[in-house]
């Protein structure tokens, strides 16, 4: 565990020394505050549109941070040759994968805390209420969704040589799942075979990231997700994360690291 934690801390340090997060946070804050300063019919209590814009920016920023950070971990280690002094220590490849995952995921968690706190302040400034339980549920679901993305990006970074291509592919897939993942079963019903079976297979195989996007519940002040359902969703994400990390380890453990 020490090794995994040590590697995770290095990833965290890289994130807060790299400036990506600050740029995205400042952009999010600027756009949100600009949208908030617009006067709609002299009503200063309108809040839902602001929540929608802010949450959309948070999701976009978090996807960029998660995927970009994870995509460059192992390729950068190989390109910069820092992987050699690291793996020359009593560090297994599984520990390296887990350490990188933990670092990226924790970094995403820290970023989300900051983003959601900002969101909470903005919303509370107009709504004068702070539905902590709802925000906590949303944050946890969001974090676990990013965990799945980090894991699949790490797997992709072992398959694809270039972080940019890996990152682009994962980003497109993630956006695709978020946008239409829920509707693939309807699309399948409208197709003839073999298209129907293919789409159904995709529908059942993909990690349904849209389950973790509860922005509409937050925006429209709808009730909490039942806690047992929420826990099941987290378990679902954990299962996919473990699957992708396992795949990454299987691919990575026998891969030669040529100097």
């Amino acid at each position, binding site marked *: 565990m020490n090794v995994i934690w040590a590697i995770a801390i290095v990833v965290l340090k890289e994130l807060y020394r790299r400036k990506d997060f600050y740029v995205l946070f400042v952009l999010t804050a600027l756009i949100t505050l600009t949208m908030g300063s*617009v006067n*709609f*019919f*002299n*009503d200063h*209590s*309108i*809040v*839902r*549109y602001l929540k929608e814009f802010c949450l959309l920016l948070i999701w976009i920023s978090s996807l960029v941070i998660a995927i970009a950070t994870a995509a460059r971990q192992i390729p950068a280690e190989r390109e910069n040759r820092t992987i050699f002094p690291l793996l020359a220590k009593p560090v297994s490849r599984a520990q390296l994968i887990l350490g990188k995952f933990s670092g990226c995921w924790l970094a995403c968690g820290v970023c989300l805390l900051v983003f959601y706190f900002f969101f909470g302040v903005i919303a509370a400034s107009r709504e004068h209420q702070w539905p902590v339980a709802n925000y906590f549920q949303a944050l946890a*679901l969001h974090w676990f969704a990013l965990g799945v993305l980090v894991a699949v990006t790490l797997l992709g970074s072992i398959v694809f040589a270039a972080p940019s291509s890996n990152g682009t592919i994962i980003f497109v897939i993630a956006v695709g799942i978020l946008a*239409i993942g*829920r*509707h693939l*079963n*309807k*699309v399948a*019903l409208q197709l003839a075979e073999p298209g129907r079976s293919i789409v159904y297979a995709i*529908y*059942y195989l993909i990690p*349904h990231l*849209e*389950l*973790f*996007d*509860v922005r*509409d*519940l937050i*925006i*429209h002040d*709808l009730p909490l*997700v*039942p806690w047992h*359902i929420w826990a*099941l*969703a987290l378990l679902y994400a954990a299962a996919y994360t473990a699957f992708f990390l396992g795949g990454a380890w299987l691919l990575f453990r026998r891969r030669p690291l040529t100097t």
Partner: protein
Amino acid sequence: MPCPYLCLAFLLTICATLATYVEPWYQNWAGSRSQQSSLLTTVMGDSRRLFANHFFVKADEYFHNGYYPTIFDQRDDARSLHIAEGAGAVEEKDEGETDFLGKPKDWIDRFGRHFYPSHHAHLGSGHDEDQPSPERELLPWLRLSATLDPQKIESYTVTAYWLRQMKRYDEAVQFLRDGLRANPSSYEILLELGRVYAEGRKDSTTARNIWELALRRWNEQEPQKPKPNKFMLLQICTELTRLELNEKHFDKAISYLELMKKTSPHPDEMQKRSEEIKQGKY
């Protein structure tokens, strides 16, 4: 070297010359549409209408607290938007069942319904009268829609309707006047403006003038169309009839009812009302 600067100056001169030649031709081609020369219009071009429509639909989505069909859920017949129907901007259609989701198709669908709005509801249903009206949340999207496409009449009429519900009459008047500047011949906007004056400012004289103007505009534009907008004619005439009855101008009320009889799907009802007024039963 002076040569490259001379070339640049020469090219600049050619550009300016071409612009003076092309601009009048473009004005001819664009026609006499009233256009806002905003930065948004310049940057976005015609795609602004797409976004305007999207934001208008967004307002409807907000009206339903997020419970809204996607393109994957749309039925074959054209849907109209509830906020537009409620505002009287379009005719109400009996669309039967409003639960577009239906039964869950599989366990993922069933599980997933906990994570997004999956029950039909309207914004503001059951809200406390003492609290600010929750329908205010529609306003930004409607405003954005109107800004992006000033020629979208519905944006103005629906917004004004909701402003009227919130008793924000001054803002409604201002907004409708902006709409009239962009669409000077719009009888829909005039109808809504009349309603604001009648209901909010209790100014029946101005309301009458505006509605009569709306009727004239309708008569100028609609009769020559293959499918005139009879719904709007009925709306205008209904308001005028009600106003005249309140003012006890029964002859005028009857004349408007006669006008409505020609286009109403229920001419008997119009006739019955006319008879009642003639008999002094009103």
